[in-house]
């Protein structure tokens, strides 16, 4: 099953027979003081810089989040950020907000088929987000939790994912336009967390067959060797069936591991992508030296 998203100029395919899709996570004010301040001031210079840098580092899609801690301004800031990113780079966008009005504002200015990030299995969320996704012909990330919180049981996460796909179908959204987030929590707090995610990915691949994405940087919160932990997790998750991730392509270790995993999964004939990426990085290094 393939999920196709697009910008005005580019199309990206997420699917089990395609190279892994990197969704760049950097345009998000959470924990970033300067970006937060700039966004509140409607200054999009760091947004544009982060967009450019991530695309240079081979992000296929960019996540854009404008969740600043000021009430009521997120829709406007998200719209401006999306417009700024569209003017700066050509890749498709994942519109990221928990505020329905912000998703709508973002979708209204987006040129192409966006990925809406995200909806959980909660009635009021489903009944407000899914009609928007349908109206704008977008794809949507469905997060495998409901109003009772996040289950530690992979089978329960599969059940919730299945219900999200069914509810999307009720709204006329086909399964290929639903990308499930199996949820990756930090192993700092629970050393079983990654195993639960990996098992959830396997169950969803076998039983639902839909595409999956997840915020892969949570996993290493508070640890040394964060990039290594993230990269190890991604490589295991790709083997288990994860087809895309919201992660930081600016980290070489993560970027390189994803190319290597694609090759090992048989998604990179004659290592063409890996070699090309190597050459372009070497060239950039040589010109900067």
């Amino acid at each position, binding site marked *: 099953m393939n999920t196709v998203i697009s910008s005005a100029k580019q199309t990206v395919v997420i699917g089990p027979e395609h190279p892994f899709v990197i969704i760049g996570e950097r345009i998000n004010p*959470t*924990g*970033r*003081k*300067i970006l937060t301040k700039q966004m509140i001031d409607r200054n999009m210079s760091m947004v544009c810089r982060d967009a450019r840098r991530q695309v240079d580092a081979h992000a296929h899609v960019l996540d854009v989040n404008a*969740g*600043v*801690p*000021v*009430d*009521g301004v997120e829709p406007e800031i998200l719209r401006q950020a999306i417009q700024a990113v569209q003017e700066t780079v050509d890749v498709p966008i994942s519109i990221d907000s*928990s*505020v329905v009005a912000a998703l709508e504002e973002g979708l209204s200015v987006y040129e192409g088929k966006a990925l809406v990030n995200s909806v959980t299995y909660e009635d009021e969320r489903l009944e407000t987000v899914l009609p928007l996704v349908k109206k704008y012909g977008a794809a949507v990330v469905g997060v495998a939790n409901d*109003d*009772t*919180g*996040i289950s530690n049981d992979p089978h329960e996460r599969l059940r919730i994912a299945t219900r999200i796909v069914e509810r999307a179908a009720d709204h006329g959204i086909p399964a290929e336009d639903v990308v499930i987030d199996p949820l990756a929590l930090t192993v*700092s*707090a629970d050393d079983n967390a990654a195993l639960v995610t990996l098992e959830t990915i396997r169950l969803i691949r076998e039983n639902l067959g839909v595409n999956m994405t997840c915020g892969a940087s949570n996993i290493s*919160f*508070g*640890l*040394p060797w964060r990039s290594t932990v993230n990269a190890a997790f991604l490589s295991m998750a790709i083997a288990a069936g994860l087809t895309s991730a919201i992660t930081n392509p600016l980290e070489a270790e993560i970027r390189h591991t994803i190319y290597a995993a694609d090759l090992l999964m048989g998604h990179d004939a004659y290592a063409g992508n890996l070699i090309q990426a190597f050459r372009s990085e070497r060239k950039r290094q040589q010109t900067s030296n």
Partner: protein
Amino acid sequence: MSREEEIKKGLFDHTLVGEADEVVELTQEGIDLGMDPLDILFGALIPSLQEVGRLFEIGEYFVPEMLVAARAMQGAMALLRPLLVDKGAEPIGKVVMLTVKGDVHDIGKNLCNIMLEGEGFDIVDLGVNVKPEEVVAAVQEHQPQLLGFSAFLTTTMPFFKSNLAALSEAGLRDSVKVMVGGAPVTPEYADSVGADGFAPDASAAVRLAKKLMVDMGYDVSMGGDDSEGASALTTAVQAVEELMVKSGKHDE
């Protein structure tokens, strides 16, 4: 070395590496031997947590190590608290505390509970992931003077507003003062959603709670507890809190 000294050294060492079972066992043994709870706190547990914080600060310790140390400390505090808080006095007010819907973070809220209880408040803890209708039901049932909402995520703090709207709809908004807090919450945000006050940490929550009580015309001077035990509890909570603040720090 006397057994008391061995216990203190053991408490320091086991807290440092987060061995909760050993810490609880040694704390119980110390209590049974008649050791002063203040000595257990100031002579072993708090210095150990401070050492954990120092090691984190210099990049030697990582978040999981802070969490297990804080957990070990909390196990010991559960045993020490009844010995430190004067249970005789009349409560100075009732507070309903909760973490909002969709959010399961409770360390901060629990520290507020300990401090408020130490200061003489009667606490009703609704736990985590509490829905607006449950907030309304709890206010109806317990009729508190104060209500405390905690949220750890930018995605869940909008539930402050949902809770307040649900209270207004039920005609209960004017019956309670509402305090809010949590990592991403700012005073401006608290203001914008219509809360009555914001507290950045557990000590501030106590000051805010007392101020709101006074605003409502209550006398908070008679109750409360300025004993050495209560102030020891404050110091202990602050030590845990300091670790949590450090462990939650993001890297830009």
